[in-house]
């Protein structure tokens, strides 16, 4: 097998999407109601797609593991959403957002996809405003913008520190409206445990009802996954506790290609870890870097209180190393710099794993009131978690796993290599290359859901042969049995260790060996240790209770079992990518002053992994990246 054609339309970049839309086949309005579409996930991508498809007339079945679609983790995004509106008259344009995103991703994304994303960004804002999303406004009544990491223009729209929440509620309300109209059937507290492929086409999923434990087949004419990223493979991350790789990993095991799994993003501004029991990490919006200055003491091991360290003995390292972007350097660079400082013994706080984010200069310049207005809720949150007051002493921050750029491979239509299986949002690999810029995740989720899938899925459905799919067919029955067997197996081990203890151990291996900095020796060690841990898991995990009830340990056990396989794939991908780019930093490949050293001659491609059976190594395929409109340059933020 090779990687299928990505179907990037030819022609000038500005008209690719426009021409493509014209060439896509249509399903006439009377026929749309004859099709059923499964949407797994109800975050920004899932809710917006489910609502938009139902509005067009399709029958939609939507699934989420939470008790309501409004809980999906998109809700936690704080800072904002980018759009090339140029409302600020500061020189923004679609071309510039396209360029910033492609460069931010260290030239490891497709030009065509990224341009379309920039193009659609402007429609998203209009759509959300019409839904009543309460974006921040200027006194004259127009929309307000802020600047964000990796950009020199102000193009980020926001709703206080709760942009993700407000955008999700907008999409959720649109979805609830369609549920009320009977066009979407919503399945909450339901988890997809397998994909069913019939005659080479995705035709349904196997779902476990988390309350009754019932395992059931659900059929459809097409399946869409909007199930988010796999950051929780690290155990500690800023993801919600329930976020998992199961849906995409199960699809991978049914033949879907997994692209660039090693591209993970470590967010620079999170609250440092405080102890072993810690269950998750909390992100502080990157917007804090607009006014906060990041520093560490110049001297290693300086244990004085921050206020006792005079300015001359502080190292504002981002301002020093990257004078033109300063504290607004992109995420991967900021995170890695923080790690370097801590590795040099200049980290702050009890553990030495932290750097200061200081607002004293900004407070002097703008006054406490302005700072409070801009960041009040974030300061409160910090205070609640740490017990420290950021108005009187600098915050301590440290990088944490936040987002995963890798995901299932999709073509320009967002369809995977399995016909009829589409993948949206963070779950796919498509738009952010090796590093995502701040305020671009919300943009991608909504672009995919509101403005891409409603067009492209029609093209597939119009050309597919309409067949009635029965949940009694052998493919569904076999998948159901597989799922049941696996559940039984997990419940029958009754070993000595809890699921969490395995998950924590896996996370530690990955954070140490496949985290902010990676090298061949470490990755090889991880590749040895993960299979050992997995073997122990199936012999020694302890999952209590039974299948016929709400059993949260069982839910976790299934997810961790998949993480234990997926973690290996991630390390393998990191080992094979012998270059540094974006969030993937291989210590062997760096410039003299410690910057990432890309290798365009050998690695200007997307790595696409094909599952070859549990006992065989997966096969690595390549999709070459071609750059017609932008010449890949060495990323410089100096």
């Amino acid at each position: 097998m090779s990687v299928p054609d990505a179907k990037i339309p030819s022609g000038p970049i500005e008209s690719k999407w426009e021409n493509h839309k014209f060439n896509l086949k249509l399903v006439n309005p009377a026929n749309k109601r004859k099709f059923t579409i499964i949407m797994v996930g109800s975050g920004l991508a899932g809710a917006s797609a489910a609502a938009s498809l139902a509005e067009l007339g399709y029958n939609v079945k939507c699934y989420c593991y939470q008790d309501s679609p409004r809980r999906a983790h998109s809700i936690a995004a704080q800072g904002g959403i980018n759009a090339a509106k140029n409302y600020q008259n500061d020189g923004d344009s679609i071309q510039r957002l396209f360029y910033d995103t492609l460069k931010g991703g260290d030239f490891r994304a497709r030009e065509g996809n990224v341009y379309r994303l920039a193009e659609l960004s402007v429609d998203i804002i209009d759509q959300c405003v019409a839904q009543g999303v309460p974006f921040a406004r200027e006194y004259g009544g127009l929309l307000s913008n802020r600047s964000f990491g990796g950009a020199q223009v102000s193009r980020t729209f926001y709703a206080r520190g709760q942009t993700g929440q407000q955008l999700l509620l907008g999409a959720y309300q649109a979805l609830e409206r369609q549920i009320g109209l009977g066009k979407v059937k919503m399945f909450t507290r339901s988890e997809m445990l397998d994909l069913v492929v019939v005659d080479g086409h995705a035709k349904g999923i196997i779902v476990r009802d988390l309350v009754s434990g019932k395992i059931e087949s659900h059929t459809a004419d097409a399946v869409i996954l909007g199930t988010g990223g796999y950051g929780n493979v690290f155990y500690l991350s800023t993801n919600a506790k329930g976020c998992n790789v199961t849906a995409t990993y199960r699809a991978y095991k049914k033949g879907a290609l997994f692209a660039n799994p090693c591209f993970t993003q470590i967010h620079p501004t999170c609250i440092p870890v405080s102890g072993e029991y810690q269950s998750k990490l909390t992100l502080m919006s990157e917007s804090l870097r607009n006014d906060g200055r990041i520093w560490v003491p110049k001297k290693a091991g300086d244990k004085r209180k921050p206020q006792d360290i005079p300015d001359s003995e502080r190292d504002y390292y981002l301002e020093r190393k990257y004078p033109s972007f300063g504290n607004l350097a992109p995420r991967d660079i900021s995170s890695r710099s923080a790690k370097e400082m801590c590795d040099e013994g200049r980290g702050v706080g009890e553990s030495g794993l932290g750097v200061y984010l200081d607002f004293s200069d900004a407070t002097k310049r703008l006054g406490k009131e302005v700072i409070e207005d801009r960041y009040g809720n974030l300061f409160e949150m910090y205070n609640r978690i740490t017990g420290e007051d950021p108005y009187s002493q600098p915050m301590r921050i440290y990088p944490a796993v936040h987002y995963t750029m890798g995901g299932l491979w999709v073509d320009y239509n967002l369809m995977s290599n399995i016909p009829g299986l589409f993948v949206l949002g963070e779950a796919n690999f498509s738009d952010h290359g090796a590093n995502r810029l701040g305020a671009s995740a919300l943009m991608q989720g909504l672009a995919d859901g509101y403005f891409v899938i409603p067009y492209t899925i029609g093209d597939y459905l119009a050309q597919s042969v309409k067949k009635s799919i029965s949940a009694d067919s052998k493919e569904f029955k076999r998948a159901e049995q597989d799922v049941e067997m696996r559940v039984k197996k997990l419940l029958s081990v009754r070993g000595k260790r809890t699921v969490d203890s395995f998950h924590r151990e896996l996370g530690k291996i990955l954070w140490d060996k496949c985290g902010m900095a990676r090298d061949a020796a470490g990755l090889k060690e991880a590749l040895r240790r993960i299979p050992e841990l997995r073997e122990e898991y199936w012999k020694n995990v302890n999952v209590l209770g039974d299948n016929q009830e709400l059993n949260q340990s069982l839910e976790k056990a299934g997810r961790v079992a998949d993480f234990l396989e997926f973690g290996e794939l991630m390390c393998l991908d990191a080992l094979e990518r012998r270059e540094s780019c974006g969030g993937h930093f291989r210590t062997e490949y760096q410039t003299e002053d410690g910057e990432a050293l890309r290798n365009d001659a050998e690695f200007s491609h997307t790595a696409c992994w094909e599952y070859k059976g549990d006992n065989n190594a997966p096969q690595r395929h390549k999709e070459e990246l071609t750059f017609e409109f932008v010449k890949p340059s060495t990323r410089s933020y100096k």
Partner: protein
Amino acid sequence: MNLTLHVWRQKNAQNPGRMETLQAKDISPEMSFLEMLDVVNEDLIAKGQDPIAFDHDCREGICGICGLMINGVAHGPEASTTTCQLHMRHFHDGQDIYIEPWRAKAFPVIKDLVVDRSAFDRIIQAGGFVSVNTGGTPDGNTLPISKRAADKAMDSAACIGCGACVAACKNASAMLFVSAKVSHLSHLPQGQVEREERVMNMVAQMDAEMFGACSNQYECEAVCPVNISVFNITNLNREYFKAIRKK
């Protein structure tokens, strides 16, 4: 520190529940309340006992899925805080802590501390939206909205739908939740077209779900983790009466 927990245990909606006493040992004040429960659960699993079921997800106070009655107070002793953001430094060594699920007829218990809040979704289905389809919307800046109106709308829109307001209310009223959505949309020009039907339909659904009436005790506001004000309820009543009059 060591704590004595009294936790509501209930196998499922069909079986009656009861309080169970458990010990939480070596709890650090830096832990969150849910991390404390994680530790207790790890301990229970090691002993071969069924861990306590509780809803949790984002653990940063925004998804709204968590919610426990802690010593009789929804989300516990700290003001403006969700259960997941409550830290153990607010408790002391040797303390007895009573942990119960949200209790309301409209929120039946599923297991232990997990309740069914789908009634909230059905209230939103009844009218908590602006009926615009995807596409064809005008440019965002063609509709100027005063900063004051946008800020007020945002104050109301901040509701996380956790249900603490219902749990705290002696009548199990959902007025704060419903009023927050009605107010969010009534403050904005986008919400004007369907203003009357929205409030009528949402209130009708709220009643159908068996939530109680508001008797102005403001317990809801006191426990709300995101400070939704009871002025939203005043606004809801006003919107409702205006809508009835027009009918």
